[in-house]
């Protein structure tokens, strides 16, 4: 039987390294590394708590041209969404997934606001997602794919509105991975995890920074500070 391309590449790597693939010590080293999740160097910048952590998240998000609204209860989200659409002269219409947290919000209190369920199709002016988490160090949203929050909502609508609970903010990216493992299991990931830091942009024409390349032209973050 001839060797497969996989076997040949692995054999070349082992020859070049002068190593044996069956070497127990090497296998143990790799197994330890994969299960230990060593954190490494965590910048001090994000290591805050309470209001300071929320303040940093908002400051960093605004620093990358996202707009931020801070509200004190999930019940206020529909009104905040409606306000945003009005401020941007957009139609009172949003696309959103089946996220239970979003579904529990009083959308009916906004009689003019039409909520369309499901994935984005490309013609929407605005989409609403619920973020899995937020990273204060860089003002980054963490969005996970699924029926709750379809990935297309993060990219196709002209305006992306993302709701994040203040309780889901962490100082650094590493802390988010512990949460992902907690929800999806060790070594398992949702199909897509989007780390989103500001609205879409490009500097490909003479290095002039322009917003709204292929993804949303604007990113609006609604931070829910409960309790």
């Amino acid at each position: 039987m001839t060797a497969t391309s996989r076997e040949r590449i692995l054999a070349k790597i082992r020859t070049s390294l002068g190593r044996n693939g069956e070497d127990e010590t090497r296998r143990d080293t790799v197994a330890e590394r994969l299960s230990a999740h060593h954190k490494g160097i965590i910048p001090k910048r994000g290591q805050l708590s309470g209001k300071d952590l929320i303040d940093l998240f908002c400051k960093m998000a605004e620093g990358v041209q996202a707009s931020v609204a801070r509200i004190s209860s999930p019940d206020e989200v529909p009104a905040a969404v409606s306000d945003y659409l009005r401020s941007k002269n957009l139609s009172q219409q949003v696309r959103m997934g089946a996220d239970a947290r979003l579904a529990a919000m009083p959308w009916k209190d906004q009689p003019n606001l039409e909520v369309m369920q499901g994935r984005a199709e490309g013609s929407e002016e605005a989409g609403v997602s619920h973020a899995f988490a937020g990273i204060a160090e860089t003002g980054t949203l963490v969005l996970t794919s699924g029926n709750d929050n379809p990935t297309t909502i993060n990219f196709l609508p002209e305006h992306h509105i993302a709701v994040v609970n203040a309780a889901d903010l962490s100082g650094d990216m590493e802390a988010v991975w512990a949460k992902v493992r907690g929800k999806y299991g060790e070594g398992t990931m949702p199909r897509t995890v989007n780390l989103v830091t500001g609205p879409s942009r490009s500097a490909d024409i003479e290095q002039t920074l322009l917003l709204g390349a292929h993804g949303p032209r604007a990113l609006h973050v609604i931070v829910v500070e409960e309790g």
Partner: protein
Amino acid sequence: MEIKSPTFKNNSAEALKDVNLQKALGKVRTGFIEKRAQAADALPEFEDLRDRARDIKDHVLDHLDLYLERYTEKVEAAGGHVHWAETAEDARNQIMEICRRLNARTVTKGKSMITEEIGLNEFFEQNGVTPVETDLGEYIIQLRGEHPSHIIAPAVHVTKDQVEEDFRRAHTQFDPKRNLDEPTTLLGEARAVLRQKYFDADVGITGANFLIAETGTSIIVTNEGNGDLTQTLPKAHIVVASIEKIVPTLEDVSQILRVLARSATGQDMSVYTTFSTGPKRDDDPDGPGEYHVILLDNGRSSMLGSDYQDMLRCIRCGACMNHCPVYHAVGGHAYGWVYPGPMGAVLTPSLIGVDQSGHLPNASTFCGRCEAVCPMRIPLPKMMRHWREREFERNLNSATARYGLGVWAYFAKRPSLYQFMTGLGMRTLGLLGRTKGRFKGLPLAGGWTKYRDLPAPEGKTFQQQWAERQKAKRKEAA
């Protein structure tokens, strides 16, 4: 793509004469450098993170076979497919096979240097598949029939006015009298044209900035969001990645991401960092129906354990070329193949042979800025020196260069004669250039004086001055 590295000297001469190119390069010299410096200064842990990033990749390279096995296992567990490609040709054929099976006519592409390396677009065109580049810079150069001149800013050599001309030529569906003065109008037009292409495409192809062994995840880092639309909307997502892109865990990649965007564009984070694991799942309303990874070797396994292993730490940020005086002068196309700048000068000979690309490791002033800013601390100048040695050993230099080195070596091995001759030379040049202070031309130095004057030496050599200072110091001490 056609290899033009052997004519590097001519390519450079042409580049120096190209008015548009020189205008475009002017912005590289300042913009990238300032932004990187600001971002690095704003993070006190930046230098420690560089060390950490280097150590992570060194560990991976030393255990690459095992991490690749684990990575493959996890991709397959998530319902994806891994295709191992030893050569560029293998990779092209594997991609084509997937496209044929899906009857793909149009393929959208996220920005990817690896698909440049395997010449995928040309191959698609020969086989009746239309590739559509979706990154704005890549789209511009595809319209121009060019290749990227920079690994993260592919159209950095193009001026705004040239983009306008290209759009007027290509987008005939719009009013020819429309106003395209503002860059933002150009961007809007590209957005509108490409939006439909994402929906038309049967297959979406991206590269990968990283592959995570722990979870079988591929990562792309972009600012535009084009890569995400490319991989989310079509029937299949094909990731093309080389074997050294592996990192062990999610935590490890987080460490490297902190130095990547800062070194590349001076951002703390790029806008979109996307982690993809397998195809669309049962409860997914969107996402690709198939997920394939082409794992490409193409010569990299031979770099392991060699003088060039450190080059496999490269994360393609572009900082080395952004800080390189040679790149600033001639731009990326002069290097004649896929990878320009200092990283290209080291990687290209490994991938296509030093006989084809011997000029590249010589296109360096050894100023050391590339190594000073490399987030992965790759000793680029040292490796360029290794290539120069290989070139000399294999007798690949020109007769003039070998003769010149021979003459220099004769004197260098006889220090007192060397010092006498250089002292004489400096005094003579000092006397000759006394009135003007500079030379417009000198015998044997035409290559230098063609583009700038040579300052006249002030009379003493470095070694003479050094000896005098040491003497003065000793006197002071005594």
